[in-house]
Structures are given as C-alpha cells and as structure tokens.
C-alpha cells in the first residue's frame, strides 16, 4: 500500500506526536502484541472530587491506541485520520495508570474499522471502549 516501512520503534513513532507526550502515552510492545500505557498525572483529572480521569482524555487515549495499532499493522509512517468514533464509558477512570489495546476489525484500502478497550488494574473490567473508522493515507496522498 505504501513504500514506507513499519516504524520499528513505536515509541519513536509516538515521539512524533506531541499530544501523545502531553497525555504521557508510551508503548509496551511484546512481539506483535501492543499495549499502550497512559501514566497517571494530576492534569488528566476531570472530576477532582472522586477523583476520576477526564472522560475526554480516556477517549483520546483510545483514539491514540487505535492510531498506533494502525500504524503498526499498515506499516505506514503516515498517521491515520479519524473519521468517526463512538466511545462507551463503562467505569470511572481511577487516578492510576491506564492501559489499552486495539484490534483492527476490518482494513480496507482507504478505511479501517478499529475497536479499542482501556482498563486499569483488572483487564477483565474495562473502563471504556471505542469503535471507530479511520482514513488511511496512500503513499501519494501522504506526500502531497
């Protein structure tokens, strides 16, 4: 699809995304299994009384996870563009580190459908999930 190679070091890939640094996102890669990590920071709080992570931040983290998974699987250095996503909030996000994994449901030539899930202490108790569509750039489009 493109002539660009899979970014081998996904942490280097997200270094090129300032917003990933802003959220404190890193990648834990074990072979072809990718888990994203969002380190807890006070500034991610949306409800200081509970306290709980901001829902928007959790949504952004899931979107970033989907983008990283797509970058890995498509091998394109171009960053996929979100078209639309639906976020389901399942539990409130505690003030601890958050993890997420994404799965590509279908990858077409131009559009990919991705599902991602975020959890904290217990993988079987997800705090949020998203389902979204992303526009993939072709080699020529990425250059223009």
């Amino acid at each position, binding site marked *: 699809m493109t002539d660009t190679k899979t970014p081998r070091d996904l942490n280097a890939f997200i270094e*090129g*995304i*300032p*917003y*990933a*640094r*802003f*959220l404190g996102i890193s990648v834990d890669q074990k072979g072809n299994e990718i888990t994203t990590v969002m380190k807890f920071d*006070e*500034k*991610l*709080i*949306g*409800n*200081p*009384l*509970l306290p709980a992570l*901001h*829902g*928007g*931040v959790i*949504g*952004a*983290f899931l*979107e*970033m996870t989907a983008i990283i998974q797509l970058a890995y699987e498509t091998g394109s250095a171009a*960053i996929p*563009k*979100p*078209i*639309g*996503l*639906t*976020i*389901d*909030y399942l539990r*409130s996000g505690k003030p601890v580190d958050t993890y997420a994994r994404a799965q590509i449901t279908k990858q077409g030539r131009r559009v990919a459908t991705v599902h991602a899930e975020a959890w904290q202490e217990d993988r079987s108790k997800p705090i949020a999930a998203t389902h979204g569509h992303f526009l993939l750039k072709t080699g020529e489009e990425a250059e223009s």
Partner: protein
Amino acid sequence: MTTEFRMTPETMMALKEMLIQHVPQMRALGVEIINAAHAQAWLRVPYDERFIGNAETGVIHGGVITTVLDNTCGMAVQLAMDEPKAIATLDLRIDYMKPATPGLALTTHAHCYKTTRNIAFVRGTAYHTDINDPIASCVGTFMIGANRTVPTGVAAAKAFMAKQKKEG
C-alpha cells in the same frame, strides 16, 4: 422553572473560576468559557504545540477535540438541570469533518436538548469561527446522579447567578 442566565462579566468569571479552574484537565488545556445559557455552553481552547497530532502538518490531535467537546457537553447538562448533580458520560459519538487549521483556536458549543430523571441527551459542535463550517460534531448521553459527588463548582456558580438575579 427555566433558570434565566444573565451573562455579565462577573457571572462569566464565576463560571470560569468554578467550572474550569477546579478541573485539572481543563486548566492543562487552557480552556476558557466564552458563553453560557440555559442548557448551552460555549468553550474555547487555544492552539498549542503540545496538542499537535501530526508533527508534519501541525494539526491538533482529535483527542483534544474529543476532550473539549465532552467537557462542553457535560457543562451544557449541568446548565440544563435545576440543581447540580454528579454526571458521567455514558457514550459519546464524534464525527470529524475536517482537520482543524494549525494556529487557530477551537470553539465548541453544546446543547443539552433533553433530560430525563436518569439520562441527559446532548449535541455538540467544534469549529473555528463559523458554526456552519464544523470541524467535528458529537452526540452524547450522560448519566445523571452518577455518583455521590456533587460538583461544588456548579452549585456555587448557580447560587451566584440566583443571588445576582434576586438583586437585579
């Protein structure tokens, strides 16, 4: 029954203090309240290099838009209720129509068009200057009375408005 809001500079300042300053994520993004009305809120987030999602183009990441839209929707829900209650986002669907222009601030508007005993329904839009030329739009539902915490900021802001109304 419907609370009339008079957006004087003082009211705006009270809203800003109470609804933005006590939310760390809103402070981190540098979000400002630019207007508020019954069941409606308008926020603005400045362009910031820390929010860039693509270093080559300088376009901000969709996640920033998601966060500000979510917050604007939550605020519209608070402004639609007679008394402040804890709310939590149940689901949020976002459509991205076009990339934000690098260097420009983002404006968001949300309207909570219906509340029931348990659920609030909201629609929102993100744009630069023209709401008819949207960057993203969203539709969401919020749980009302989601937990025991009552947003003190909202209570204080509403008390402030009620007092102002009485005095005015």
